[in-house]
C-alpha cells in the first residue's frame, strides 16, 4: 500500500472537471516513483452531489488533501463538506496535510480569515484554519512567485504549471511535518 494517500477535491464543472482529470493523469503517471495512491471522485458522479461511502473512507484515510480551488468550489456545499472533514482531521492530528491549487480565479471575499478563529474558537460551521501557515499552496506561481491560476488557455504554460505542482508536491512529500 502506498504511503502517500492523496485525495483530490474539486468541483465538477467546465473546465474544472477537465482540469482535475488532467491533473490526476499527471500525478498518476508518477504515482510509483512518488509512492502515491490517488483518490479522485469518480467522474461519473454528478457534480459532487453524491456523498458516497467511498468518499468518506478516502477522506478518513488520506494523508494529503489537495483542493483544486475556484469560486465554484467554495460555494459548493458538498465540496466544503469534504474540506470540513479534512480540516477537522487536520486540527486534531495535523493529518492530512492541506494542499491547495488555484485552478481558477477565486472571489476575494470568499477567501478570508475569520479574526475570531485566530484565538481558536469555532464561530461557525464553515471550514476555517487556525493559522495562515496551515494553508499550503502548491501553486501555481509565476516567475515572481505570485500565486496565479492554472493557465488553461495556454497549453504549454499549463504543462509547465503541472510540472511545477509536481515538483512542489514531491518536495512536500519529502519534508514531513511542513504543512
Amino acid at each position: 500500500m502506498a504511503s502517500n494517500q492523496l485525495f483530490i477535491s474539486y468541483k465538477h464543472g467546465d473546465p474544472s472537471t477537465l482540469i482535475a482529470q488532467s491533473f490526476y493523469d499527471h500525478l498518476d503517471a508518477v504515482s510509483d516513483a512518488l509512492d502515491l495512491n490517488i483518490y479522485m471522485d469518480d467522474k461519473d458522479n454528478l457534480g459532487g452531489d453524491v456523498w458516497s461511502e467511498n468518499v468518506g473512507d478516502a477522506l478518513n484515510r488520506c494523508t494529503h488533501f489537495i483542493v483544486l480551488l475556484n469560486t465554484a468550489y467554495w460555494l459548493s456545499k458538498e465540496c466544503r463538506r469534504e474540506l470540513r472533514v479534512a480540516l477537522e482531521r487536520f486540527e486534531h492530528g495535523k493529518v492530512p496535510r492541506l494542499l491547495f491549487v488555484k485552478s481558477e480565479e477565486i472571489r476575494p471575499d470568499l477567501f478570508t480569515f475569520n479574526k475570531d478563529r485566530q484565538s481558536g474558537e469555532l464561530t461557525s460551521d464553515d471550514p476555517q484554519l487556525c493559522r495562515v501557515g496551515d494553508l499550503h499552496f502548491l501553486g501555481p506561481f509565476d516567475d515572481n512567485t505570485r500565486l496565479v491560476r492554472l493557465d488553461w488557455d495556454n497549453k504549454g504554460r499549463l504543462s509547465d504549471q503541472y510540472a511545477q505542482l509536481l515538483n512542489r508536491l514531491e518536495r512536500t512529500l519529502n519534508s514531513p511535518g511542513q504543512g
Partner: protein
Amino acid sequence: MPRKQKVVIVDPAQIGGGVKLRKVYISWVADDLKRAYEWVGQLREALQAVTQDDTSTPVKTVCPGWRDASASEESMAGNISEVELRDARTGVTDLLVVATSAYLNQQMKQAGNKSDLGQPASELLWFLSLGPQLVPRLPVCWLAPLEQLKLKRYRIGEVNLGDLPDWHHLKRDEARFISLEEGKSKFVDEIQEAMDQLLGHGLNPCQRCRN
C-alpha cells in the same frame, strides 16, 4: 504449366542484406490538451516531405494511429490492429517517442499486459525489449518531450526511463517543445531543429546508440 511462385515477404528495410532505409516510427498518444496531436501533425507533415536523410538514405515515416483532424479524438491514436502494428514496427530504424504524461501513463498501464500475439502491450516496452538477436539493427531511441519531465519518475514495467543510457534527447533534460499557441514560427522552427538532428544521425550507430 508454370511453376507456382513462392511468395516471400521481404522487409524493405533490409533489401540486399543490410539496412537501406531509415524508417522512423512515431510513438505517441493523443492527450487531453491536444498538444501531441498538433506536434505530431507538424512533424509528420515535415518528415513526409523529406525523401532522404543527410547521408542520402531514403526515409520513410510511420505514425500508427494517426488520423486526420476530421476524425474523432478517440480514433486519433491507439486504435489500430495488431497486423497493422506488426507491419509498422518491422524494420524500424528510429523510434521517436513523443513524451507526454498521457503517453507515459498509457505505457505504464499497458506494461503488465500482453497482446494477443504474446507481445508486450506497451509499445515503448516492445521496442525496448528488442535485442540484437531479434533485429539486425536496434532502433535509435529519440525522445521528444512536450512537457517538462523528470524521466527518473517514470517506470514502464521494470524499466526506469531515467536509467536508459541511449536516449537521444531532442531537447535537453526537463526542457520541452513549445506549443503551437506559444508561437507558430518558433513551434515550426523547433520541429525543424528536431528533424535536423534526426536526419543528421544516419544509419551508423553513434556513441549513444545501443548497437
